[in-house]
């Protein structure tokens, strides 16, 4: 990663942190500040990944189903 892309990544992450505000934990175990904030930051990314994955699965199953139907 060169310096410019690193600055870009850090800025994006900082912006994300600014926009994600999370409610107080009230947990009996310590969720950990760094762990809590980290989840909030990557949550959006992983949510998007899950959507893409679901879409991909549907697409694959659509074509495999069609192929199976064609083969019959």
């Amino acid at each position, binding site marked *: 990663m060169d310096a410019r892309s690193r600055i870009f990544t850090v800025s994006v992450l900082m912006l994300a942190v600014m926009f*994600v*505000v*999370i*409610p*107080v*934990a*009230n*947990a*009996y*175990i*310590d*969720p*950990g*500040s*760094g*762990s*809590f*904030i*980290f*989840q*909030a*930051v*990557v*949550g*959006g*990314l*992983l*949510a*998007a*990944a*899950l*959507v893409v*994955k679901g879409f991909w699965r549907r697409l694959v199953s659509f074509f495999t189903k069609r192929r199976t139907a064609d083969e019959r």
Partner: protein
Amino acid sequence: MSEEDGGRGDAEPLPGSFRDPAGFVFRREGTLFRQVNEIHRPHYDRLMSSGLYEDLVGRGLLIPHAEVDGSPAVRQGASLVLRPEPLRFVSYPYEWSFSQLRDAALATLRIQEAALDHGMSLRDASAFNVQFHEGRPLLIDTLSFEELPEGRPWVAYRQFCQHFLAPLALMSYRDARLGRLSSVHLDGIPLDLAVGLLPKSARLRPGLQLHLFSHAKSQRRHASDAEPAAASRGKFSMQAFRGVLDSLRGSIEGLGLPEDVSVWEDYYGTAAHYAEEAMARKEELVRKFLAEIQPDSVWDLGANVGRFSKLATEGGAFTVAFDVDHACVDHAYRDAKTAGETKLLPLVLDLTNPSPAIGWSNAERATVAERGPADAVLALALVHHLAIANNVPLPAVADYLAALGRHLVIEFVPKDDQMVQVLLRNREDVFPHYTAERFTEALDSRFEIVHREPIADSGRVLFLGRRR
């Protein structure tokens, strides 16, 4: 102490059950109960009314329980007493093989996903909350669920990564023996330690890069934050929550063990040292002895891949197959899982340094002996490893085995046996007392010797002893 100020009556809260204000487990007249405190009652009621309890119990992911009339162990703040279905044996994550820890991790994620479906969430993700019951991992802490606080990330994310993902990655990328690191770090492997030990190539896996490396970095960055990790409003969406869980699942499913066969795993495969005839005779004798004892529980020490443990489970006994070799234990677990075996629990244990009492005031996690005794202990092809490889005097071997079981099926392996000669090949024979006579004497001091049968063509002798 009066009952009003929390008199404990005849109940003893278990020493490992003090962290959670929601409740705790206690034992009364030998039966295990779980007290639910008022503070947690709404969450417990939601577990039962939302359909989550039936869903999880139906899928074998949560221990079933009954609500009972019994009085609580501590009256103050008490709301309800539960009697969970009893477990046959409590094992700890540092005794599990890779596949066991991996299955426990995946079960935890499945439970959390089901909880989300019912508007609830796990408040903790400790590997100690998972136990193997009838061959499968399930959650034993009925009070781990809370109503899902809207918009909040998973409070147990850090704990999940430390208890499951970090040790699994270390076992997969470095060495399976690192599973025992969990006995040093009871709240899971600190992520900075895990990433320091993992090779750079682990970063190539996006899930590990994210949940271990970047996560550890974020922990470091915020370690000295004075503000709580929380402002006031805002949302962590349900989709984000599910995204995190799905990513964790993918990361764990992607981890495996390198395929190397250990010396011990191949023990019977190339068993030149053990003529098949002698092996058959030994099986026949073990089966006969077990039929005589009719044990309900058996501990097979040095079980290898569990060939003799199977004789015990076939006879109906719940059997724990202990071995020091990780590959053997993992093999035995995978075999048992495929076969749908419900009576076998393979565990990693170094008998020369058995699991100690650890945790707060050295009482949270019990020693192996404290979790017994078993009705019968099998110690086959084992005594030479203890007495010669580890220099333990024979009377001390008998003492410890008497602490573990009420009956003992033990094989004496004479000094001229090929396997003993291997152990002695590079060292001075400082074992003048390692003889059949001294062995019998040592055994006799602790056990009434019921049978003493030579194993044909091997020079070995099989004993059945009943503890004095």
